[in-house]
């Protein structure tokens, strides 16, 4: 940093995978061709040698939340359970480009999570200390430290919500989300995985409590095991086998500015005023907002959410005042009651669940792929998935990460 905008982008790829028709049967069917589904298929093939696998996607590969997220990668969560899986993921990110043999533009430019009140400061310092105990790089920086790391942040004490400091994770950063998906897709396809697009799952068949097949818009496909990786639509899929999930699907909006010269060297997030900003490799300012309060599947959100987000962005970054908004969009996120994912087995035999990542699933892509693939292959939870079972809502063993999830929900 700073780099010339666009100079490090690889050429747009040619076709990286075939577009096959579904076979009559597979050992494993992964429902959802986004980042998590593709990563799961990749690790099933690579680590466990299970290659008779289909990834079913109702639209086009990685065209849902994977195409709509704000690409932030970090592992500075509060609780040991979350540290386990997110740090596992971050370590995989650090070797992923080499592993996939494909550029993903992983840039460890650091993430600042701002604190704007005394309580914010106390909570942030607590999280930093918890991170350190888990061997995660984290530090507390004061307002001057924020200014040093990211000079465009307004650290004046005279604003409504002054910046009092921030948590800082130097190894955190961003990656190019499309390339991540294409890298996983290409590598999974090379090992024999069928990537099947325009194939919507319309039913899930069971016999004696055991999953046997999926009904799709392209016919019935038999399956030894079925793995759900459908993010915002997980509730809809689970209802097909009579399974209720403790999830709410909400629109989550983001936006980008026009292309600008490199001005923003890191990633800045603020829970309190609710905006987070990074600068994409090409030069757009990428900004995320909070979720809309109500349930929704329409992939569009409310104008007033964007208005609040822009107001917060302008107070924190007065330099953005004349930047033009290029486009806005929304994804549908599945929010769980404790802001933590649900990974693992279900009451239906050989039906596996990966959902509830809410607003923060992208950063977990390689980690959850590895952990979920192991859970599917072995038929029991991987150690990093163990705390994230569906029955924690009955036992009460919640993993409350609202404070570290960084998006207000």
């Amino acid at each position: 940093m700073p780099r010339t905008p666009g100079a490090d982008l690889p050429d747009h790829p040619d076709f990286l995978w075939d577009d096959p028709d579904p076979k009559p049967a597979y050992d494993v069917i992964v429902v959802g061709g986004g980042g998590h589904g593709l990563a799961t298929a990749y690790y099933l093939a690579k680590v466990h040698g299970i290659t008779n696998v289909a990834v079913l996607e109702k639209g086009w590969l990685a065209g849902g939340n994977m195409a709509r997220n704000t690409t932030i990668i970090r592992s500075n969560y509060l609780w040991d359970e979350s540290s386990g899986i997110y740090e596992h993921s971050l370590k995989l990110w650090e070797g992923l480009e080499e592993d996939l043999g494909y550029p993903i533009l992983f840039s460890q430019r650091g993430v600042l999570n701002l604190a704007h009140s005394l309580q914010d400061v106390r909570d942030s310092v607590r999280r930093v200390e918890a991170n350190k105990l888990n061997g995660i790089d984290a530090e507390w920086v004061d307002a001057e430290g924020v200014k040093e790391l990211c000079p465009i942040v307004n650290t004046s004490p005279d604003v409504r919500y002054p910046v009092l400091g921030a948590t800082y994770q130097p190894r955190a950063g961003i990656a190019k989300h499309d390339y991540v998906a294409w890298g996983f897709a290409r590598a999974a396809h090379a090992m024999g995985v069928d990537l099947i697009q325009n194939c919507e799952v319309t039913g899930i068949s069971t016999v004696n409590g055991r999953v046997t097949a999926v009904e799709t818009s392209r016919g019935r496909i038999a399956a030894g095991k079925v793995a759900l990786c459908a993010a915002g639509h997980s509730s809809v899929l689970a209802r097909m086998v009579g399974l209720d999930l403790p999830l709410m699907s909400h629109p989550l909006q983001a936006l980008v500015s026009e292309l600008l010269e490199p001005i923003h060297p890191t990633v800045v997030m603020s829970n309190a005023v609710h905006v987070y900003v990074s600068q994409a490799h090409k030069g757009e300012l990428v900004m995320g907002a909070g979720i809309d309060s109500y349930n929704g599947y329409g992939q569009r959100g409310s104008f007033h959410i964007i208005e609040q987000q822009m107001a917060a962005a302008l107070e924190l970054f007065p330099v953005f005042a004349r930047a033009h908004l290029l486009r806005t969009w929304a994804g549908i996120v599945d929010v769980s009651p404790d802001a933590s994912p649900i990974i693992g087995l279900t009451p239906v035999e050989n039906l596996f669940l990966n959902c509830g990542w809410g607003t923060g699933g992208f950063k977990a892509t390689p980690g959850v792929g590895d952990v979920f693939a192991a859970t599917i292959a072995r038929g029991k939870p991987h150690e990093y998935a163990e705390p994230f079972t569906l029955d924690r809502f009955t036992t009460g063993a919640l993993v409350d990460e609202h404070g570290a999830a960084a998006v207000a929900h």
Partner: protein
Amino acid sequence: MQLIPCPWCGPREEAEFHYGGQAHVAYPEDPAALSDEDWAKFVFFRANPSGPLAERWSHSAGCRRWFNAVRDTRTHDLLAVYRLDEPKPVIP
């Protein structure tokens, strides 16, 4: 921005309202009799359909009264708005 028809004030902008989640969720009649599973269902599980959902709204920046609405979560269209003492309308 959406216009939401408050039963008392008429159509007002979405930003005046507060969302209250699923409607018609009754507090357990005999809480002491509930199993852990039943408590989990009551506390954590709510309907999350892709389609019509009966839900509660409060006109928090207006008359401050609560009401119910049936809204299609795919289109955000409000299919019915009704008072708390009115039964849930049948949506064809």
